[in-house]
């Protein structure tokens, strides 16, 4: 299928005082898809988005939105997208409606256009009842919804969402996923960052796994899992003393592809569970290492992440202090 490219990021680099936040990043987003940037804290997701919204100039490389360069044609690019920042960018003293009115003027809507769209959006994010209260009285989830309404106000072709569900309860998360799917159904292109695996897995059509400013792999969640191949055998081992020796005993065995130490034991990537299990049990027996629980499954996105970055997203420590 021949698809239109909505966003093209080409060998993008961005350094802060010599530290490379984004390092030779390239990816393309197709029109009409939900594209995810998945990575741990400090991976460079927000930096990449800030370049796309024209507020950061690349140190080298380039990015374009609907064919327009984010540096040379910044003014034009800014008319094409809506943006929902990672921080709750809310003015506590303004009401929800006043936020939207302000943005309406900044996008040069007439009073009537703005009024109509504001009413629609307040309804969409279910803030009608609270529209005329100052935002300081809003809960975290309500602020996030207002944030999203602000991003949608320009009725953009492209929506950038920076960690849209960070810190929300399960219900609100699911609702926001639904909004995002609905926006896609209306033909919008959505680029979002996340460090939630389930979000990337269930919501994104395609995603790029990013770590330390580099793209590790790109594809649809299903493709990425299939590409990994084989099975994952998870061992739960309470007695951690022999963990290291068991891991090294398994490494290099023909049936074993990769061994990764987790908080609770070992995750072993294998050709097929049937062939590998006897090998693993034998090694454990030999070392007198007691296995508390054995489980095997097809690769999940977490396994994809581990395979490409060498660590689990769940327990990935921030690469650097983030302020």
């Amino acid at each position, binding site marked *: 299928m021949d698809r239109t490219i909505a966003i093209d990021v080409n060998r993008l680099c961005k350094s802060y005082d010599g530290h490379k936040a984004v390092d030779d990043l390239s990816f393309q987003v197709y029109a009409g898809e939900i594209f995810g940037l998945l990575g741990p804290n400090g991976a460079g997701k927000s930096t990449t988005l*800030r370049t796309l*919204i*024209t*507020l*950061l*100039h690349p140190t080298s490389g380039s990015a374009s939105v609907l064919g327009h360069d984010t540096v040379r044609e910044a*003014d034009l690019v*800014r*008319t094409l*997208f809506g*943006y929902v*920042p*990672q*921080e*709750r*960018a*809310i*003015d506590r*003293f*303004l009401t929800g409606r*006043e936020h939207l*009115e*302000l*943005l*309406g*003027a*900044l*996008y*040069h809507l007439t009073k009537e256009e703005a009024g109509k769209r504001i009413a629609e959006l307040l309804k969409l994010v279910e803030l009608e009842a609270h529209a005329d209260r*100052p935002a300081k009285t809003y809960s975290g989830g309500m602020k996030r919804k207002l944030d999203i309404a*602000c991003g949608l106000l*320009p009725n953009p072709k492209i929506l950038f969402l920076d960690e849209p569900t960070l810190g929300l309860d399960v219900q609100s998360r699911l609702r926001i996923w639904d909004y995002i799917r609905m926006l896609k159904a209306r033909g919008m292109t959505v680029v979002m960052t996340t460090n939630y695996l389930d979000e990337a897995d269930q919501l994104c059509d395609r995603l790029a796994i990013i770590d330390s400013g580099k793209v590790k792999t790109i594809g649809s969640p299903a493709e990425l899992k299939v590409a990994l191949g084989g099975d994952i055998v998870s061992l739960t081992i309470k007695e951690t003393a022999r963990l290291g020796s068991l891991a090294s005993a398994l490494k290099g065995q023909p049936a074993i592809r990769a061994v990764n130490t987790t908080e609770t034991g070992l995750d072993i990537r294998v050709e097929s569970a049937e062939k590998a299990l006897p090998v693993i049990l034998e090694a454990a027996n030999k070392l007198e290492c007691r296995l508390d629980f054995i489980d095997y499954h097809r690769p999940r996105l977490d396994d994809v992440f581990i395979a490409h970055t060498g660590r689990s997203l769940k327990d990935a420590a921030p690469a650097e202090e983030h302020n």
Partner: protein
Amino acid sequence: MAHYWQEIGALTLRWVRRLSREKFSMLFTLVQPMLFWLIFFGNLFQRAADVQVTQAPNYISFLAAGVVVMTVLNNGLAGGVDLLFDKENGFLERLMSAPIHRSSVILSRFIFVMTITSLQVLVILGIAFLFGVHPATGLAGVAMILLIGMLFGVGLTAISMAMAFSVKSHGDFFSVLGFLSLPMIFLSSALVPLTAMPGWMSVLAQFNPMTWAIDAVRPLILTGWSDALPHVGMAVVVMLIFDALCLYGGAKAFRRAMG
């Protein structure tokens, strides 16, 4: 052009709304000390201040010019604070990612700060009037005072915004602010005329644009046009140079921060 005004109008309205919501107390804390100074300090030091030295009928009428310009100073130097908070919580990013002229946010801030400052100056002059300080140059003189205040205020607000865009944390911002404003006041003719200062102090005070502003405002209140005009002329020249330098620095800081 219509777009430009729409943006600036909406952004200015936001500053007004913020002020009216919460900053009422803040407005008070800004005006109040100034009025106190004028009324109590003025009367208290009446005896101490030698009429021969101040060349004014009473200390309160001498002090009025200083209080006017100090208000301009305070408002100007605090003018960037809201932008600092906007920068820190990401609101500025949201504004700047909209298709607006790059200068709209800043211009709206200038308009807002200048308007509030002018209103406060009028309040101060009004209260001084009640205490018998009648500007010698009349309403035209008051207009001239506002003009000088604005010329000084533009540069100060530009400094404040430049700092807001370049500091790493708001702690830094407020320490630099405190560090700037006290010497600006004491090394100026706000509280005592240059002639009554020790030599080194009056030399330093002459490099302070605040002194030039006060020395133009004071004769506008105390003596009259013939005495004031040369000072006003000099003040305008000094302020224009001061503004040019501050705006240049401010524009540089803004460009660095906003790509």
